């Protein structure tokens, strides 16, 4: 049993800039195939800056907002420790290693891309990478089990953007209006 903590005692208040940068650097460094599981492990289990519940709430907020979820997470955790500067430090930390590694990989790729063996390897990996994204979508669908109205807006998004290749902005505007109206009516 833990005592309820007073709001002012949030551990985030005492985080130094160096600690902030180091933590997000580590997330970016370790995040093979997605950063989110590492973000939870580091922020909740290792540093104890957030509880599981706070983390889940923050992720929910980050998903509603536009932009990469882990970059949004960096913005908010950074802001809670050192304001706008903190946000920049956290974003820099989480993107620093990945961008550097990406440039190394890209340079290597450019130098071997014409080799038949490399071409075959890349063909295999890119086919599987497409499957990974489809599988992620199926997994999310299985776990969230949206009601019929959600299946309708989600299915419409898939067909309009994937199959018909319509511009995303207008599809999003239409689907968000319809989706919010349907949820609002259903919650009355």
């Amino acid at each position, binding site marked *: 049993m833990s005592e309820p903590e007073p709001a002012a005692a949030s551990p985030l208040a005492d985080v130094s800039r160096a600690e902030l940068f180091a933590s997000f650097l580590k997330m970016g460094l370790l995040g093979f195939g997605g950063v989110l599981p590492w973000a939870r492990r580091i922020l909740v289990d290792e540093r104890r800056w957030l509880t599981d519940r706070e983390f889940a709430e923050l992720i929910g907020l980050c998903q509603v907002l*536009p932009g990469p979820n882990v970059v949004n997470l960096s913005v908010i955790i950074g802001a809670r420790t050192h304001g706008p500067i903190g946000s920049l430090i956290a974003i820099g930390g989480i993107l620093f290693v990945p961008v550097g590694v*990406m440039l190394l990989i890209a340079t290597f*790729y450019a130098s071997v891309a014409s080799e038949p063996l490399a071409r075959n390897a890349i*063909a295999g990996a890119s086919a599987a990478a497409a*499957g990974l994204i489809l599988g*992620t979508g199926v997994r999310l669908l299985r776990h969230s089990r949206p009601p019929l109205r959600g299946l309708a*807006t989600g299915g*419409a*998004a898939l067909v309009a953007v994937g199959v018909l290749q319509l511009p995303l902005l207008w599809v999003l505007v239409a689907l968000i209006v319809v989706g*919010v109206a349907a949820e609002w009516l259903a919650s009355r």
Partner: protein
Amino acid sequence: MSASAQLLSEIAVRFAALSFIAVGGIMSILPEIHRVVVDVEGWMTSAQFAELFALAQVAPGPNAMIVALVGWKVAGVAGALVATIAACGPSSVVCYIAWHWADRLRQSKMRAVLQRALAPIAIGLILASGYTLALAADRSPGAFAFTLVAAAALAWTRVNPVWVLLVAAGAGMAGLA
């Protein structure tokens, strides 16, 4: 304006615009990135886009790194940095502002409604991304089988995605793709 400065500013404008509508993250806007860089701008072929995406998946870090690779392909290291900053900047500013009133909205009904309405749309967009990438990558029945197996592995097991990619690359080298 020099040709390369012109190209960099085009990259900046394109990705900054996408940043505002990346609801659910970068995976949601992959079809739109594909549409812009392949169909509208003609910066690369559909197959090259699928290859870059596979590279982005093998490397560590956020999925958003596909944006850096696309920038690199179009305009080198400067392109990578400009694309990354443009794709993350506007959404980060929106996030910073939103966070200031998020606490007030925590209990509000509208936030719950918005969250429930957006979740299935984001899933639909992720599936659209997978569909777009599969169309670009699967040029043989073997490759199509790779896509199906990888999708099933991610959907129904807890296997690390990096292993799936490495096995697929190895099988590709063996001429199976």
